[in-house]
Structure formats: C-alpha cells, structure tokens
C-alpha cells in the first residue's frame, strides 16, 4: 500500500493530466473563447445585463455618474470580444488612462467583477467559462486600482 502522500500526489498528477487534456482538446477544436461563450449575441447580452446590474449597485454605480453608458457598453463589449479572440478591434482608452481619475478601491474592483459574474449567470454562460474571462480581467487590477485609493463612494462614512 503506497503512503497516503504518494497516493494523493498521484491522484493530483492524474487530475492535472486530465485537465490539461481537456484544455488541449478545447483549443484544438478551433473554438475561441468568444465562440464558446456564445459569440456576439451572448456577449452583447452579458454586457447589457452587466450595465443594468451595475447601475443599481450602490457599491460602484456612483463612479459612472458622468459616463455615457451607451458608449461604455459598446467599449466594454469591444474589449471583451477582443480579449476572447472574437476579432473585434478595441477602440477605447487603455485601462490605466480610463480609470486614472476614479480612485477605485480593491473592494470596488471586486464588486464590479461580481456584477459581471451575475450578468453571465443571467444569460446562462457556464461558471467555468465565466472564470476564463475573469481570469483575463483580474490582472487589470494593477492598472485600475490605485496604490492607496480613498473610496469616493458618498455612502462610505469618511
């Protein structure tokens, strides 16, 4: 009988191989993440739901007070389409510049991600694909969140 640790590491290795195999198969199938998410229709619906959810989320909606939301919706769609290999050009500003004046905190960043998860749920994109998108967005925290942000949320007691 192998030691529990060996058995455990063995199972871990096996799981890793299966996961890697699955990933390779998905890619060799020639489908981009954009396709797997459901293409333009699904992604536009997601971004639309996201804007609705964000508008009623007091944790972050105040940051969009002076934003043209139609334009924002289009730019966010372009960006997600571009990132997921949907082939759209992204015509907006870079993430650092777009958020430079907003004093966004980590909690606000995470709140926005939660709203995006919620939007994906509403249009029935599976969680494992949602995570693939959020995994691409998460490192943008370095550009979006300032080093020592002070929330501008009027609801936070200063």
């Amino acid at each position, binding site marked *: 009988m192998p030691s529990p*640790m060996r058995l455990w590491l063995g199972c871990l290795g096996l799981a890793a191989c299966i996961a890697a195999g699955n990933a390779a198969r998905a890619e060799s199938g020639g489908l981009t993440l954009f396709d797997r998410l459901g293409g333009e229709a699904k992604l536009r619906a997601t971004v639309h739901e996201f804007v609705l959810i964000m508008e009623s989320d007091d944790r972050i909606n105040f940051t969009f007070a002076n934003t043209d939301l139609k334009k924002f919706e289009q730019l966010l769609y372009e960006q997600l389409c571009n990132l997921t290999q949907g082939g759209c050009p992204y015509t907006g500003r870079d993430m650092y510049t777009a958020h430079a004046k907003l004093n966004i905190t980590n*909690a606000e960043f*995470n709140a926005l991600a939660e709203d995006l998860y919620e939007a994906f749920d509403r249009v029935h994109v599976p969680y494992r694909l949602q*995570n693939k998108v959020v995994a691409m967005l*998460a490192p943008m925290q370095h550009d979006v969140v300032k080093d020592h942000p002070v*929330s501008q949320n009027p609801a936070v007691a200063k």
Partner: protein
Amino acid sequence: MEYFRALRAVVVTSCFLGVGLLGGQTAAAENLFGSDEGKFLLTAGFNDLEGSGGGGLVPLAFITGYGSSDSWGANAHFTSIQLKDFQLRTYGAAVGALDRVELSYTRHEFNVTGTPLDGLGVSQDILGLKIKLLGDAVYDQDSWLPQICVGAEYHKNDGIDHAAQAGLAGVTRVTQLGASAAHGTDIYLAATKIFLAESLVVNAAVRATRANEFGLLGFGGDRKSSDSYEPEGTIAWLPTRRLAVGSEIRTRPRNLTLDDESTAYDVFVGWTPTKNLSLVAAWLNLGGVLGPATGVTRHQDGPYLSIQAGF
C-alpha cells in the same frame, strides 16, 4: 460538564451566527461593522483544525474574513469531528485585517469515545497569527507567483480529564504520557494559487512542528522532541461561485511511542451561500491514533462538519 461544554459551544456559535447575519451583505459599501465585505466569495477560506483560515485540515495563504485590503473581516466557527473512537469539537473566532494580517483563537475539546481509554478528555487553546508576505491569489492570474503567507500557532494544552475512568488514575498532564511539553508553537509557510481559468485552487504548505496529534497529546516526545518539517497540501475545484470540492493532506511527526500518529487527509465540500455563512462537510482520516496505548490500531476516520459565520 459535557452538557455545559456543548451548550457553551452552541451559545458562542449562535451569537456569532447572529452577528454575522446581522452584519449582512447588502449592495451597500459597508456592513454594520464597517467592513466592506469586498473580497470574492470563498476567498476568506473556511477555518482549519487550528482555527486559521484554510480548508478543514490545512491552512491556506488567504487572510480570513471578507474585508478587502482597505477593510477588515471576522468570523466564528464551530466544528464537530467524530472518528471511530475519538471525537473532537472545536470552536473559535478569527479576525482578518487589511487582507494582510490574521488573528485567530480556537478551543479544542477532545474526547475518547471508544477503546479501553473511553471517557478520557483533553482540551487545548490555540492562538494563531498569519501574515501575508507576497503575491495575490486573485489578481496575479498572469503570473506563476502564488499568494504566500507565514503563520504561527501557539498551542497550550489544558491537560487530561477523567483519566481514572479510563484506567489511568493520577494522569492529569500530557507530559505523563510521554510528551516533552504541554505547549508548543507551530510555524508554517503556505503558498496558494487560484488557477481561475481552470476553476482550481492549489495550496502547498510546510510546517515546523513538534505537536503530537495537533498538540492534543502535547509537544515532542520520547521518540523525538525536536521540530519536524512536515508538508501539507490542498487541491480544490470550484464547480460554482459558492462551492469548493477538494482534498487535503497533512503529514505529521511521530514523536510518541504510545501514539502511531501518521498522515492525515480528507475530502471535503465547502459551501459559501453568502459572505456571512459557510458550511463544510468532509470525511477525515487521521490514520492510527494511540494504537500502541489502546491496542486498537484501526484507522480513525469519520465525518467532519463545520459551520462558519462572519463577514
């Protein structure tokens, strides 16, 4: 005594449960306690056996609670483990601040429920401190760097109850069973990586310890009294935003002739319906426990159930 302890655990847990739910997560920027509850679901972790933020058996390099790097969080837990011949109840509270520092307190109440030592009880208090050193498990998706924490767990064993009933009249301290000391400190380093694109969490830790059965049988012993360096690991799959399914393993030193201590492992399902409540159900296997002392050498496995409430 038994009933008093159980009652105390229930009261403490339900108070915190109440407080946690009262704090309530809303779509507002702060809860009643000034916490922003700003971290992702599941990233507070559960409470490990020693009360630190982790799975059920192994600490994770997460700071407990749902406060973001500008805030704080706290939780309380109650855990019940019933192995074939042994029972462990733990309860305690933990606080995480600035997503950087974690403090925890946990009480262990251990009872022998089978074997010739039936009736024996041991208890201990554990104080934990964890500090995040580097990396970010969520944001660093574009790098291989895990989130890394260093932690310390100070254990103080309260001694042995009802030894006479178990045929060990006069035994009141773990040092009488061969332990070198009744208190000790574990130091660990934990590295946790969330592979978000794969919905996987992988964690590895190493612990410098001389604890016998998590300190329930004291520290160091007749076979070895110095620190051992023991590896630990966690793997968890996230099938939904609120569920983690996985397994943990933890090797342990064997310091006492009386105790055939070996590797502990579990499989678990953790469910976090809201940032104020988590439930863990696991199957835990500690291997042999006190085999040479009791003559009962079968594996000690059984259900592990834990509830955590907080924010």
